[in-house]
């Protein structure tokens, strides 16, 4: 049974449809990344999943039961789901009181609460700040305490709204480790909203991709707007100057293009040309390497470490991206 089942969900603000989901299922214990450009409806979806806002239309089922959007019914549900916002606020109390807040309102006794708070703070590496005044923490520490505050309640679902968007590298790495640990334990369902595609790819095997409030069927990878045209029967989609990919299955004109990062091969380029650009980022994720090439728009590429070593490429090198037609999906544009 799915943990969340959303059917025919619509959210309309000022006549504009900001979310339109015919169906969305979230399975228990899995990690999902929630991706999409700004204004795609990600935060709106998180508000529904955290039971903060009722959808204007449609049905939400949690654990198989339809959700009644009444305060008395929602409170027990909210205690199973934790939302960590992009810019979390700390209550003007100590870190310990912040992390223990959810436990205190559940009536947990002080000794058990103390143990759980210590455990949660240990997880995010901030046990030494337990007695500090929470509003005085740095941005990264605040984000980590907010995660500890959510996890102390042992929620079944953890919703993270861009948790690393405004933190430094050290804090980002720690937050990613925490998410990875939770994912590996498989007890908590994770929905990680992020603009960082390599982070999403590394942490979450499942992807929810939103585009103008709608689910984009492409499950993972690069997404662009482009112009599709046909030359001698072959469809080509122009994404940016010098960035063109083979595409088919749509009428000529504006389209959305998805490119699977694993369907791209990179080779050293001698000079400028089609789909050529500098390699701007290389990041090791276990035995896989996540790369980013600047083709006028960033193109994310994933390859095995062994394969990457064989290319002899490094950051700053000019590379040509060879995009396999099977790695390209084309959808009608909006």
């Amino acid at each position, binding site marked *: 049974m799915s943990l969340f089942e959303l059917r025919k969900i619509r959210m309309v603000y000022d006549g504009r449809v900001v979310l339109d989901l015919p169906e969305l299922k979230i399975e228990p214990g899995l990690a999902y990344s929630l991706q999409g450009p700004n204004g795609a409806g990600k935060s709106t979806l998180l508000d529904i999943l*955290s039971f*903060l806002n009722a959808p204007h239309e449609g049905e939400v089922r949690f654990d198989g039961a339809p959700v009644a959007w009444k*305060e008395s019914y929602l*409170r027990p549900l*909210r*205690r199973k*789901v*934790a*939302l960590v*916002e992009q*810019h*979390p*606020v700390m*209550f*003007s*109390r100590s870190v310990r009181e912040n992390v223990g*807040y*959810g436990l205190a*309102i*559940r009536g947990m006794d002080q000794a058990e609460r103390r143990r759980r708070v210590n455990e949660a703070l240990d997880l995010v590496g901030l046990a030494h700040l337990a007695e500090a*005044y929470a*509003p005085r923490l740095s941005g990264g520490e605040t984000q980590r305490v907010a995660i500890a*505050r*959510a996890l102390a*309640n042992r929620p079944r679902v953890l919703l993270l709204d861009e948790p690393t968007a405004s933190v430094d590298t050290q804090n980002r790495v720690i937050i990613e480790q925490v998410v990875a640990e939770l994912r590996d334990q498989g007890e908590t369902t994770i929905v990680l909203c992020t603009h960082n595609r390599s982070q999403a790819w590394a942490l979450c095997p499942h992807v929810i991709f939103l585009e103008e409030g709608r689910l984009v069927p492409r499950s993972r990878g690069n997404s662009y707007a482009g112009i599709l045209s046909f030359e001698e029967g072959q469809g080509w989609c122009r994404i940016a100057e010098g960035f063109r990919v083979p595409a088919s299955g749509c009428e000529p004109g504006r389209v959305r293009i998805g490119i699977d990062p694993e369907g791209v091969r990179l080779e050293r380029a001698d000079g400028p040309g089609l789909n050529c650009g500098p390699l701007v980022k290389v990041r090791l994720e276990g035995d896989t390497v996540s790369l980013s090439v600047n083709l006028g728009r960033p193109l994310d590429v994933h390859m095995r470490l062994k394969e990457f070593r064989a290319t002899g490429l490094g950051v700053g090198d000019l590379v040509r991206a060879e995009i396999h037609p099977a790695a390209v999906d084309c959808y009608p544009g909006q």
Partner: protein
Amino acid sequence: MFFLDSLWAAFELLLGFDPELLRIVGVSLNVSFWSTLAACVVGVPAGFLIGITGFRGKQAVITFFNTMLALPTVVIGLLVYSVLSRRGVFGSLGWLYTQKAMIVGQIILITPIIVAFTIAAVSRIDDRYRRTALTLGASRRQVAMVVLHEARFGIMAAIVAAFGRVISEIGISMMLGGNAKGFTRTMTTAMALEYDKGEFVLALGLGVVLLGISLLVNVLLGYVQGRTRR
């Protein structure tokens, strides 16, 4: 020189614990304390509820309380006088020219201050506090307590402002208290009387006390804020 002489004499009165001066200060503090307490009991919950909830006509209610901030003390004095005078609705209570009448008038004066400032303090609280408490599983009452906790300094400032207003007002005290020596003579009415008599020593002494009380209250508020924020 005259001013300095008077000021020196005023300090002598203060340091000598002059009985008349102490009685006047006592009446002022007593009346101000009870009127502030009563206005808090009404004003803080009212302001908090108006601030935290959304309802039709909320802006009109806020505008009403903001307008009431400008209510002149003499108008309140006249209003309460008409109710408490012998021919008034509550004339039989016999409260006119007593501290009770002064307290009633002062409650009317400062309740709008406490309500309006509490609304402002609560409205300024970031909505993320409410959302955070909700997502952590708080009930409506618990969410309200979180907002109240975050708005506490704003509400304290409202109470301090209200206390400052009543302890320094003169119109209501004069009209409803009558400036009766030992009973309804407050610091401000006494200062006005002494001025009329051309006796500046007691007036200055009372002025120093008035400023001292204001300073003390603000220092206390700052201390509480400082300790809480560590």
